[in-house]
């Protein structure tokens, strides 16, 4: 089954994406999804602005999905990532993985998110409710540490 990668400014429909992996099939036993949202950071954040490297971002997400597929015999993989201005409560990223069994679907979904965080070329800038902007979000040690699990 194929992999779907999309990078887009608009929001997406998680259920439509999930249905696309299972509709008309009766060999799917497990579907795991992850949706990442923009948080308001205790009321201080008015929006995130997401910049990406067009071309490379798609390639990196495809590479990460391919690596997940090489590790686990999953069926469908969908990875969507938005760019542009995103306000608190809105979706930023979506990963869905279908498979015969739950263990592989969970593992592949989390693996993709962990590597997406640290190697897909996206950068977030914060806009504050006080009108200030320009602070780029700093990479987190926790995200680097998350990768150790997959070594």
């Amino acid at each position, binding site marked *: 089954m194929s992999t779907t990668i999309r990078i887009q400014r608009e929001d997406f429909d998680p259920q439509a994406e999930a249905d696309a992996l299972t509709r008309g099939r009766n060999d799917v036993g497990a579907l795991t999804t992850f949706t990442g949202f923009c948080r308001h950071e205790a009321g201080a954040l008015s929006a995130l602005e*997401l910049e990406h*490297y067009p071309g490379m971002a798609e390639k*990196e997400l495809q590479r990460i999905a391919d690596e997940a597929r090489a590790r686990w015999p999953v069926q469908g993989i969908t990875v969507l990532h938005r760019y542009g201005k995103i306000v608190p409560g809105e979706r*930023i990223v979506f990963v869905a993985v279908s498979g015969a069994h739950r263990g592989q679907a969970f593992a592949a979904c989390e693996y993709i*998110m962990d590597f997406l*965080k640290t190697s897909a*070329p996206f*950068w977030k800038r914060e806009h504050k409710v006080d009108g200030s902007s320009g602070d780029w*979000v700093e990479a987190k040690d926790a995200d680097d540490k998350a990768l150790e699990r997959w070594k």
Partner: protein
Amino acid sequence: MKAVYFAWVRERVGKSEEEIAPPAEVKSVADLLAWLKGRGEEYEHAFEAAKIIRVAIDQTHVKHDVLIEGAREIAFFPPMTGG
């Protein structure tokens, strides 16, 4: 070759891309980072912490000891913060 900049590297350099023609002695990514840093105040600021700058050659991540020969597009950016 084309140099492209993202996020705060782009902001500090003041442009998102440009053609660059480093001299022959600039062989590795590390050499290129040092050479870029010497190109003026904005570059000095953008590449002051060269070690944390991530680099991609023709849209593939590379380490700083990789040779740049044959590269068409070299990208410079901070650690990624997507997702």
